[in-house]
């Protein structure tokens, strides 16, 4: 997933980075095809070049040697709401057929089965980033037809489409899973299967979604990670395998 996520990034993109896989993906992209990527962390570190793998979004290594430090007010007002962010990464406990994301509660809000951390900046990333890339392993539990709570708006939902709501960003344009890639359809924004990892068949993928997953007219088979990418991930960027398992590259 980290390699796939990295390949979604274009050279020169300004990326709003979270910790874990997105951070790995960004650093992989910088080390390969996108040296001009600018990483902005929610914590305010701009153009960070951490000399160790940051374990928190506010790691001091993100500040030392960075290009700028922005206050949280500036991060949210001038960078994110200001339309200066091209790519945001999001994950979540639940992602629905329209790309709405729940990171707030499982069950009802007042009597939750599981109390999740909440939005943090996810809600405004989903609204303002030019493109949102969602990274999450595909499973019926994580990809229900409808989420219990909309923390971050997707392409469509009970409050209407992004166009109707006049949301500035394009929302989740790619969902990178552990078996393939989903994309919102032009027609109604419902996620459909557009690409598969090598050796994965569409039938088995369709069973992993909590709704009847549509398959795009043409489904690409993605090239596997290169040896160079795997080496960078496993030996350089995450040598202690904090964020990647064997399968996970």
């Amino acid at each position, binding site marked *: 997933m980290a390699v796939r996520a990295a390949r979604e990034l274009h050279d020169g993109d300004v990326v709003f980075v979270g*910790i*874990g896989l997105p951070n790995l993906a960004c650093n992989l992209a910088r080390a390969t095809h996108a040296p001009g990527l600018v990483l902005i962390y*929610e*914590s*305010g*570190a701009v153009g960070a070049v951490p000399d160790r793998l940051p*374990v*928190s*979004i*506010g*790691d*001091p290594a993100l*500040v*030392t040697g960075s290009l700028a*430090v*922005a*206050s*949280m*007010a500036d991060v*949210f*007002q001038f960078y*994110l*709401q200001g339309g200066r962010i091209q790519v945001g990464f999001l994950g979540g406990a639940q992602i629905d057929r329209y790309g*709405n994301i729940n990171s*707030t509660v499982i069950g009802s*809000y007042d009597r*939750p*089965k*599981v*109390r*999740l*951390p*909440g*939005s*943090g*900046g*996810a*809600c*405004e990333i989903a*609204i*303002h980033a030019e493109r949102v890339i969602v990274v999450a392993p595909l499973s019926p539990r994580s990809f229900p037809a409808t989420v219990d*709570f*909309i*923390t*971050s*708006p997707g392409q469509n*939902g009970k*409050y*209407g489409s*992004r166009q109707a*709501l*006049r*949301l*500035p960003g394009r929302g989740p344009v790619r969902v990178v899973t552990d078996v393939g890639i989903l994309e919102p359809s032009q027609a109604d924004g419902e996620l459909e299967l557009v690409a598969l990892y090598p050796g994965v068949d569409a039938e088995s993928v369709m069973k992993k979604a909590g709704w009847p997953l549509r398959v795009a007219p043409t489904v690409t088979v993605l090239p596997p990670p290169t040896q160079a990418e795997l080496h960078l991930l496993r030996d350089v960027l995450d040598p202690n395998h904090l964020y990647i398992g064997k399968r996970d590259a």
Partner: protein
Amino acid sequence: MPPTSPKLMPMRDAIARFVHDGDTVVIEGFTHLICFAAAHEIIRQRRRDLTLCRLTPDLVYDQLIAAGCARKLVFSWAGNPGVGSLHALRRAVEKHQPPSLELEEYSHFGLVARLSAGAAKLPFWPLRDYQGTDLPAVNPLIRGVTCPYTGDAIATVPALNPDVTIVHAQRADRDGNTQIWGLYGVQKEAAFAAKRVIVVVEEIVQEQVVRADPNRTLIPGIIVDAVVCEPWGAHPSYAQGYYDRDNDFYVEWEDISRDEAALKRWLDAFVYGVADRAGYMHELGPERQQRLTAKPQISAGVNYGF
């Protein structure tokens, strides 16, 4: 300038004088400069019925909640960053284990905006946010206005003016002119929004040190009520240039907070069982302190001449 400052005082006095039962309290700091020392003194002085506000409640509010200080939590992301959950908080919310805890929930931007409004003494702050989400449905304080120019619907949040804000910083003079570098978080807005401000620093410096680099001053002394010198007061959070974040402790907290008895033992040993921050650091031991001490990476100066 006065030769002595009545603002300079020990943590015990600052908490006794400026934090009262029932207060709305903000201890800010985004990963960086979270004032655990002040939280521990609040626990020791057994403050009750506090409304705790913070973007990321973090371990600091998990501890205050576990110790029974909190009535309500105002927040935007409640987890142990990079590790897992805040279990004392989750027990209060999921199992209503006493003391029960009222929640008021925003996104990060929403809470930053509430503090910005408070600092600017505006009753609300406008933001393009929350369209298409369930957040306004569970928080009636998220409202909106119509733009008088474009007719756009713009979300609003109300001002947050805490009774007291506690800011940790690298250094201040004894009048409270406070300098911060590294991540700023929302410390400035939280301080200007508050009725009372306690600044806790790694070092008290001569006024001349502040005056030699005025662009580093984030919080002016005129809004500060108490200045406390408390080295290592942000541990297990960090202070850029002084000590690193204690990531091991954040990992350890997962097991401590998951088990109520273990959490109680931890509070007994590290909070109730010590008199002050020096006692806490003694309990923590010199090895950890040594390992976390920052290595030097000194910036160059700039010319303020004319």
